[in-house]
């Protein structure tokens, strides 16, 4: 009985639990980010509390939003979208729920470790060995679940989203195992090469691929337009598969790593424009004739905002990776802005859209308030735009400082206003996420009678 509650095999429960956990981790992660951002402006805010010092909060922030929020939202979305695309049930809801518990347990461990500084000292791969093993086991179980679902499919053709999901679930566990370097100690620069293989491919082989797959799923579903071109989407898929994985070294372009590796990284970074343009052409052509839906359909608005942010971040990326622009922009807040543009702008928005689309369909309960969805949208969009602009400006000031040889003490004072603006934008983003969680809580846990009448299947104004 207890086991049945813990590992429910009710249809859609794995997806629902994953999405809800993701929202909580998102809230905590964004809260940690906000707190850290505040400490940039008020460095004497907290004293003698190691758990709340900026570096520890930053470690937790990165892990909570990337591994907690985005990855769980992705798995939750896949547990909903894959059965829907294959017209079958998820292979095992129990296994899905087990993955959900394992992942949550790992994240709880991560809170304790990151806030107390139990880190492996590798940026973006900080989690200690035990948590790494848990994550790998959970990823393999999730992949098994999705692959088995696809093998049971009742639709012969694989839709493009499935290509992306299946690719990601094959690549990401391997990238994670290679990139975490859990049980190996390599000499410094070799460590850096693998570290950036991981640091970039957690984006390339996981966040981008699943995110783009979800865009391919949601756009035709929401607009009822057929996908513009299947061929173009395949070009995008193989483009990412070929050109994303070797780009990692562009993060250490001016360090003494081998030149041939840097050359491969820069060239394939530029070639990434191919999958980006093919995917975006496909998205925007699919929208043909349905652009007015953006005004009324909030889920679609999230998707389109996400594609636009994806477009901007992917234009920035290849140019930042070239030697001459990297020379100027590296080591600055511009890069932090770019990272937020990808993970917060593009992929958090698409995860949010997937939850707004999927959660009512999984639980059968409509959203509690459309007004709150609209508030969430504007808080996140305005907050993020402010954050992006302030980080980019701060980054340009820092770049000029490094390039002109101006001491840190001097440009440090010049960017203080931008730290403050960044912290303020964090308040908006955190408020947006809080409203999101509150809305979900009211939709799921208040009696149906209290909910305003709305059509179950539609999230519309």
């Amino acid at each position, binding site marked *: 009985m207890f086991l049945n509650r813990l590992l429910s095999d009710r249809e859609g429960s794995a997806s629902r639990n994953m999405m809800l956990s993701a929202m909580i981790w998102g809230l905590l992660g964004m809260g940690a980010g906000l707190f850290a951002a505040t*400490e*940039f*402006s008020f*460095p*004497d805010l907290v*004293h003698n509390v190691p758990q709340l*010092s*900026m*570096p520890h909060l*930053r470690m937790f922030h990165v892990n909570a939003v990337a591994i907690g929020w985005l990855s769980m939202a992705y798995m939750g979305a896949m547990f909903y979208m894959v059965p829907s695309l294959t017209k079958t049930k998820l292979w095992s809801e129990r296994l899905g729920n087990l993955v959900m518990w394992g992942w949550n347990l790992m994240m709880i461990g991560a809170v304790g470790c990151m806030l107390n500084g*139990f*880190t492996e*000292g*590798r*940026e973006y791969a900080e989690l200690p060995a035990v948590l790494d093993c848990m994550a790998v086991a959970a990823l393999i179980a999730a992949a098994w679940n999705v692959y088995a679902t696809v*093998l049971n499919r009742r639709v*012969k053709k694989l839709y493009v989203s499935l*290509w992306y999901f*299946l*690719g990601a679930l*094959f*690549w990401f566990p*391997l990238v994670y195992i290679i990139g975490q*370097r859990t049980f190996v*100690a*390599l*000499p*410094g*620069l*070799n*460590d850096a*090469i*693998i570290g950036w*293989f991981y640091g970039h491919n957690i984006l390339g082989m996981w966040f981008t691929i699943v995110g783009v797959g979800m865009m391919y799923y949601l756009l035709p579903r929401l607009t009822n337009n057929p996908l513009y071109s299947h061929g173009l989407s395949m070009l995008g898929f*193989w483009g990412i*598969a*070929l050109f994303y*994985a070797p780009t990692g*070294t562009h*993060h*250490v372009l001016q*360090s*003494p*790593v*081998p030149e041939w*590796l840097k050359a491969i990284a820069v060239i394939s970074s530029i070639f990434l424009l191919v999958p980006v343009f093919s995917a975006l052409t496909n998205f925007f052509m699919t929208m043909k004739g349905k652009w007015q839906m953006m005004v009324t359909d909030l889920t679609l608005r999230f998707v389109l905002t996400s594609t636009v942010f994806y477009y901007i971040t992917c234009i920035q990326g290849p140019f930042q990776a070239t030697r001459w622009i990297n020379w100027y922009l*590296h*080591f600055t*807040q511009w*890069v*932090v802005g770019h990272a937020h543009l990808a993970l917060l702008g593009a992929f958090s928005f698409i995860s949010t859209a997937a939850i707004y689309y999927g959660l009512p369909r999984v639980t059968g309960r409509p959203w509690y308030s459309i007004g709150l969805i609209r508030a969430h949208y504007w808080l996140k969009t305005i907050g993020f735009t402010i954050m992006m602009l302030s980080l980019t400006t701060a980054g340009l000031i*820092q770049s000029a400082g*490094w390039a002109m040889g*101006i*001491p*840190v*003490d001097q440009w*440090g*004072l010049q960017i*203080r206003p931008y730290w403050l603006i960044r912290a303020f934008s964090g308040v908006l983003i955190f408020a947006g996420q809080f409203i999101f969680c509150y809305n979900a809580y009211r939709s799921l846990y208040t009696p149906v009678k209290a909910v305003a009448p709305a059509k179950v299947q539609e999230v519309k104004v």
Partner: protein
Amino acid sequence: MNGYRLGATGVVATFFTIVTSTVLLPMVLFNPKPSGHGNDYSKTAVAKVSDPVRGRQIYIREGCVYCHTQFTRLQDRGYGPLVKAGDYVFETPHQLGTARNGPDLTNEGVKFPSEWQKAHLVQPRALKPGSIMPSFSFLSNRDMNDLVGYLQTLGNMRKVESFVEAPTEYKAALAKKTVDTAADASANAGRGIYTQNCAACHGMEGRGNGPNAISLLKKPANFTRPFYKQWQDDMWFFRITEGVPGTRMPRFGEVLSPEQRWYLVAYLKTLPTNNEQVVDSIEQLNPVDAIRLPKLSNQLWEPETGGSHGE
């Protein structure tokens, strides 16, 4: 994969080709020999006062890498010699870093006294007003000593092997000089010329802190830095004569006679060194004493006082 065998093979094949070529191949082909300029942690003896190997673990634990990098680039003027591949052989896990919200720490060792470093960890803003570094006052005395010990080893082994030299025509000028630049009398003669022409920007003691310095975007040189101690006569003469492009340093060749410029060279060579303490190994480091900061109003960060260090 019923009907998708080609696609699945492609996915697997592309991934493993890429992993082989960009992950495994560098591990096999890229094995830099230790340059002797990086820290060799296997050889560092555990010192009584502070243990830099443990200090490195504290550096990792406290996440210093999120704001401080450990590699110098060509354009990072003033951050010491450029790093080489062999410098990092013993750095595991690497602490190269990605963002600089603070200065680069590649060559941080012995730039500041240990007491300064320790006080800076406790309350950065007492020593660097406007700094946004968090206070690490929660570290224990031992942690703090070890961390400072580690910071003091950074870049100690990195030595400059070649310098920028004056153009060849100034080597010829060296042969024609009429002044003995090593003599005290010449330096004495140069002192007046320095006060009249240079002190407004470079300061009375040559520390680059003259009254004009505040309004200059590119700050005047601090002649007490060790960097200037290796300049030869011809390099000094070249710089005084030609000025420094891109800064407000004028071409004094237009104003001063060659003789006056040679007197100036003699004087500049007598300026003191900023930080006389040079440390080759951790054993020679000053013990980190319990620090006493000037009294400030905020009592929260009051450092541990009393007792001896490193218990």
